[in-house]
């Protein structure tokens, strides 16, 4: 043996390194897929009729800020006979008052309830609807005609004050963390408001149905899917309230929450290929 062995040794070292670093690919074989698509809401259906205690009535038109949370689920199938609109198939009916469980395989939303910086905003503000605090204040003052107030009833007029209040309530230091204002879910698509959505990690087999609905505001700008006694709890001096959040079975019993004015996807989307992007149109306005 001599030192001429060294190049061979080095080569062996390199080969061994390569073999180890490549390793073996590991596939968990999870029956899951990520589904991508677009939710479209016709602008004419997105108009929201509001009223106040004095009987005044008005309509918010062509304003995506008035769109409530959009819930999208992946289901085994859709049944046209359960309600006046297509609804996910039920499982066994154990409670006649709420129908059967639809057992969603996956789902997502476009917008969610956030944040109860003031008690007046509990279950009224959503993510993905506002690009600034001023936009929130303007919308509630000018469109909803119910300005945001503090616990003493004083109207909040300063965007900075609003931001500081939210930061203090939520213990955050940036708008990115708070996620109340920022990129908008819906963009203007001509006759439609359009939002890109992604259903992550859904159970998937070819032929699944994508179905959804938008919880549109009531005449008093309330939302049927929001639990005012749910979510985080705020307790500070005289303030004592829950910040509100959606009910946890919205996609299990959607029929329970769909109320007059809500928008429902009338044509279910059947997905055979998870790579196929879907377009879900909420083209049916439910009326009692």
């Amino acid at each position, binding site marked *: *043996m*001599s*030192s001429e*062995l*060294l190049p061979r*040794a*080095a080569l*062996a*070292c390199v080969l*061994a*390194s390569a073999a*180890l*670093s490549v*390793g073996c690919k*590991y596939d*968990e074989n*999870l029956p899951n897929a*990520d589904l991508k698509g677009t939710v479209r809401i016709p602008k004419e259906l997105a108009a929201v009729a509001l009223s106040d205690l004095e009987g005044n009535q008005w309509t918010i038109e062509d304003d995506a800020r008035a769109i409530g949370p959009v*819930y999208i*689920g992946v289901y085994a199938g859709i049944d046209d006979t359960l309600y006046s609109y297509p609804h996910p198939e039920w*499982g066994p009916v154990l409670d006649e008052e709420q129908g059967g*469980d*639809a*057992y*969603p*395989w*996956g*789902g*997502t*939303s*476009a917008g*969610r309830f956030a944040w109860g910086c003031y008690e007046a905003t509990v279950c009224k503000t959503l*993510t*993905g609807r506002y690009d600034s605090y001023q936009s929130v204040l303007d919308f509630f003052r000018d469109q909803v005609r119910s300005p945001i107030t503090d616990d003493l009833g004083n109207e909040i007029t300063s965007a900075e004050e609003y931001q500081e209040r939210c930061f203090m309530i939520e*213990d*955050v*230091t*940036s708008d*990115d*963390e708070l*996620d109340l204002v920022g990129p908008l*879910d819906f963009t203007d698509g001509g006759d439609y408001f359009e939002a890109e*959505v992604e259903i*992550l*990690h859904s*159970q998937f087999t070819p032929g699944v149905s994508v179905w959804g609905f938008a919880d549109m505001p009531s005449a008093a700008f309330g939302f049927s899917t929001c*639990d005012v*006694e*749910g*979510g*985080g709890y705020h307790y500070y001096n005289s303030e004592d309230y*829950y910040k509100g*959040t*959606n*009910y*946890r*079975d*919205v*996609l*299990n019993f959607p029929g329970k929450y769909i109320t007059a004015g809500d928008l429902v996807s009338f044509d279910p989307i059947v997905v055979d290929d998870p790579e196929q992007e879907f377009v879900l149109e909420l083209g049916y306005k439910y009326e009692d």
Partner: protein
Amino acid sequence: MHSLLSLARMLLLVLLVLPGLARASVTAGTIKGTTVDEGGLPVPGVLVTIKSDNMMGAKQADTDMEGRFNFPELPPGIYELTAEKAGFAKVVRPGLQVNIGRNTILTVEMPLQEAGEEIVIEESRPVIDTESAQRGSVLTKEFLERIPAGRSYQSAVQLAAGTTGGSNANIGGAAYNENTYLLDGVNITDPVTGTFSLNFNFDAIEQVEILTNAFDPEYGYNLGGAINVVTETGGNVLEFVVNAYYTNGNWAPKLDARYAADGTQLAPTDFDSRFELFQAGVKIAGPIVRDRAWFIATYQHDRSLIANVGIDLPRDYDGHYVFGKITFQPTAAHRFTLLAQADPTTISNTDQSDRFVYPEAQGQQTQGGVVASARWDWFISPEIFAETIATVQKSYLENAQVPCTHDENLGYNPCEPTEYEYSVDYTTPGRFGSNNAFDSGNYPFFDFDDRWRYSLGTKFSMLQLSLLGTHDLKVGLSGDVTRWRRTFGYTGDVYYVDLNELSYNPDTLQNYYWVEITGPISFLARAENIGAFVQDVYKPIDNLTFRFGTRYDRNIVRNDVGEPIINVGLWGPRFSVIWDPWGNNKTKFVGSVGRFNDGGRLAVPYYLSQSGFGSKLFLGEYFRRSVSAHSNGLDNSYSYAPNENLNTVLDGTIAPHSDEFSVGAEREIIRDLAANVYFTGKYTRNLYAFDETNLVWDEDGYNVLGTSDGTADVLQRMRTPSIARRDYFRTDVGVQKVWSDRWQVQGTYSYTISRGTMQTSPSGFLSVPQQVEYYVNGLLFTDVRHDVSAGFAWDLPNDPWTTQLGALIFFESGNPVSRYYANGAEIGFGSILRQTVGTYAREEPYFEARIKVEQEVPVRKGKLSAVAELSNLINARQGDGAYVASDNRWIISGRQDPLELTLGGRYEF
């Protein structure tokens, strides 16, 4: 030298004679080298003799035709080598340091002189092991005694490059619970948590080996490092040591502080972060039969009163560590060792998570354990030997709250007048409160935790085999059985009320709630491991070494009904090349690759057992106000966790593993001092992770919109997804000097980049929840940090009044603390967290400096020493991430480590 035929015969011998299973142990080192004449030509036939106070008798060997000699399996310590041959001067090399798992390689020059002349050479002690690629450090007894490590080897472990953290260190980019802890070669890693499980007697430690990267297969399969403590054996001279030390951290201002959400330091608190420590020990060691049987026995008492930041009550720690070992060598071919270590400890007031600890909530915790091992070393020939070790280990953790009493004479935990005394019933499933509630009587919580490990095994070594060079071959077989029984609960029929609603009325259920345990209160998990390794040190030429081998482990971890939760086969191939370009043992270039695995731990089946504890929460009228979901509508029960544990494991999970590479160089730049530079990369993949399987989330994984199975339960599942990973890259630049000329130093600067989706490998449940993977889609943290560690020891030349100086310096540039929030959906087992944008803040850099002075005073018999040690000289803040439940988020918390003064004394003869 032996031929290939000899190798085959020896292998057959292994299979026939040693059918037992064994865990490999590394407790010895090697002296080897070459005798040469003044012209550099090898001198064969030289009689080489080595002796040491740590070795029974002397060992002799004649150098071979190449002038080579080899003394393997030497107990660590200081040795003297003598080389003699007619026609040459007798050469003596004293002060040779033999370290665990290391080769002390010499070139002994034999001058032509008149026979009988003796030349003592004390220069140039070997500092580089040119046959090993292993990264890490060996801390000798002499060094540990001189540096200000607070008489804790764990405080000095950070001296090894790539080692950070506290008593359970993070080594080589791994989590704190991914290391292996060895005591005299016996695996004493906690089988449940993967952390250290025994407190050692400091006075019994001979050496501590910290292996961080590129270690041989015989050290095991862990993802992190190995910490190998080897104890003293006694000697032919009776030795007696008694010592006492007192440490006080209360005499300088303490600046404990907490930090606001944006990282701003709030005003220093007025909490009394009390710090007092008293240590006392005694050691006696010596011969039972000279050069045949030695013993060592030590006792160490640790008593401390230390309060955490923000906590009023100190934690009263009272530990008793007992160690004993007998080594019996009836013949030169056989050595038997019996070892036992126990560390019974009592801790009072265990609940320091809340400063508002009510007297009735005080408790006492007993913990500790015992390990006993029997070892047989069989030296079949100077180059063939085997070792067999059998080990039993039991550790326990008993935590029971102290019930209040109306007996004033007892002097503790008196009951309020309205309270009634309680007799704790540990067998009846009880009820407990939650949140800010406490019971109206007392707080009878208990937790009994027992862990066992049984190990048996053997290792077989054949050295100097000839086959296209020389081979040092080792094979080993090992087997472990571990068990974990845990029983806990809340006893009795106790009523709980909300602190904020004191007008409770149990009769009407107004403002009243309780939780009942509905399932079993005891749990047993167990695991089996069978492992084998083979490794070879191949030297095709004198200055080139290949170390290669592999280990295979079959690990089965079972839940409470015996079902295998983890059943994995672990292959761990390792390959290294070491090149000494000039063949003078003063330089080496190193390259290594290897795979390291994680075989799981008993904490995992805790969450995956078939039977769960089960609980049922009952609410009174006040609490029912907030019921909005999950009420069964039938009675006043609010939520119900069934007895059956619904958590699962995904079929086909694989073992977490790290693929590691390392390149580096070492060079002796001045006498006895070497500089080194290394680069290490480590790709850890498929770590254990848990996700939920049935929840349907909203757009950013914050709220739950539904459940795929229609239940309110959260179905957790263990996986080993590819996304559960860590990448780790480290560059080290360091120096190391062996003990010579009355001083020693070692220090390293490390630049580290690590990123991944996992900070720890879970011993608990929380790791990579599904929404972190699929909604954050990012790395959990990226850590770029600078670390400096250095230790220094110097004996002032003022004999016989020897003054020893020691210093330690640690610098860490701090970790990033990403901002985590509990999810809006509280789903139990600790809320699943999500990460928001970016990195929140960094912990402040941490700098620690310690100095120690020890003055020896010779007395008529033996010597007396006085010790003074100052720790935290600059009173650095020790930053830390902390979860603040009230705020539902992680923030930076921290404290000023108090300036501590230790005064002590020692007498020995």
